[in-house]
């Protein structure tokens, strides 16, 4: 079965190795500069490949539909999440809003890993899903801040500044920029750099997931603010959001790979762009809390359990 196969692929096994090492309190550690460098490489590669694919396949209505669906998910998913975090999770308004923003936004590495799993299962997502990924990063931040403002007297922000900071977040810029470069260069321009950005991609991803395993497990070990109820929500959100994403994608007529990818995006929670924005705009919210939920609970769940599930659901929806 594709699910088990995916679990035993080296990419996922390296994640498990990292997590195991951190739980065993090994001193294994990847230098921060190297991990940052690899994550930039992954974004450039995924952006380029998406752009090259769109250059080959041309624009389509599917693309517009997927973009609209992604935007809607990023704006709307934080709302029920916020309610669940307040009522069931027992968080105050500001923390609930901050966490909800993370779940509306997306995780690049979850997407990248999912795309690898889908591709090796024979269902590559369409190239334009990279653009959808970039579109979904920021709207949830705005929604989260609006929720926080309703919940509590939140320090008035210089609005332009925050918008600037989120829209020009390094990862958004690199993803979008690489996508455009791929679009301009096309297949022939991409060929000479393909050995680095395509052939090497999976191997480098292994090393990165090793680091993610270390980071996620260390966070989980040190998470004080994480209650059982919040941990449960950290598992439920991806399941529910992922299913919504897959169903929406299928309903819009996307092929199975792209519908699964939309599910993966919906299921994933940000741990780069959103935490930085929250630290700026909602300093009262506890970073230990939102990073523990997105990075230490939801990310590992998606990588190991979620990806095969969303894939299976998308395949079932596709085959009548």
């Amino acid at each position, binding site marked *: 079965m594709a699910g088990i196969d995916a679990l035993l692929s080296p990419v996922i096994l390296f994640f498990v190795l990292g997590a195991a090492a951190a739980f065993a309190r090994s001193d294994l*550690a*990847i*230098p*921060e500069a190297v*991990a*940052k460098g690899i*994550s930039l490489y992954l974004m450039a590669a995924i952006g380029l490949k998406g752009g090259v694919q769109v250059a080959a396949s041309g624009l389509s209505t599917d693309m517009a539909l997927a973009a609209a669906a992604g935007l809607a998910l990023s704006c709307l998913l934080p709302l029920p999440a916020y309610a669940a975090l307040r009522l069931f999770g027992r968080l105050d308004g500001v923390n609930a809003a901050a966490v909800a923003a993370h779940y509306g936004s997306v995780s690049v*590495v979850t997407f990248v890993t999912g795309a690898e799993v889908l591709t090796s299962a024979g269902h590559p997502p369409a190239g334009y899903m990279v653009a959808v990924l970039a579109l979904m990063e920021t709207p949830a931040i705005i929604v989260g801040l609006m929720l926080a403002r309703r919940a509590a007297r939140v*320090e008035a922000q210089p609005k332009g500044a925050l918008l600037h*900071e989120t829209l020009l977040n390094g990862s958004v810029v690199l993803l979008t920029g690489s996508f455009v470069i791929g679009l301009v260069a096309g297949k022939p321009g991409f060929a000479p750099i393909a050995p680095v950005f395509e052939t090497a991609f999976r191997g480098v991803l292994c090393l990165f997931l090793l*680091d*993610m395993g*270390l*980071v996620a497990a*260390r966070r989980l070990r*040190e*998470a*004080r*603010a994480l209650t059982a109820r919040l941990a449960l929500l950290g598992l439920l959100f991806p399941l529910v959001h992922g299913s919504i994403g897959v169903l929406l994608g299928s309903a819009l007529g996307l092929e199975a790979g792209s519908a699964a990818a939309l599910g993966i995006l919906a299921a994933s929670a940000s*741990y*780069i762009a959103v*935490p*930085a924005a*929250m*630290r*700026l705009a909602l*300093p*009262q919210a*506890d*970073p*230990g809390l939102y*990073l523990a939920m997105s*990075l230490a609970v939801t990310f590992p769940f998606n990588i190991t359990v979620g990806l095969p599930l969303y894939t299976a659901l998308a395949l079932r929806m596709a085959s009548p």
Partner: protein
Amino acid sequence: MTGTVPRRKIEVLVDAPLLPRLTALAAAAGVTSYTLFPALGGSGAGGRWSEDQVTGAQSKLLFMALMAEEKAQTLVAALEPLLESHGLLLMSSRVEVVRGGKF
């Protein structure tokens, strides 16, 4: 000590994404000379953090500026709202500098 003058050293431990706001407040208070040092990790009321995170949201650095006593008071007053709202740590201490005219 020959040729040294007393100055005040102000150090602020600041979250990386907040740095532009800090330097803007400092500049508004007339402090445009400073040096930044990296921090590696730490522990506090909000739990542990460490620099080896993919997410840069928790990396911190140390803003350090030398100045005359009066200017230091202006600076601390100017930074106080940011220190409050974001829970930043500010240290102030006395040092001697050589070529005091410059600093």
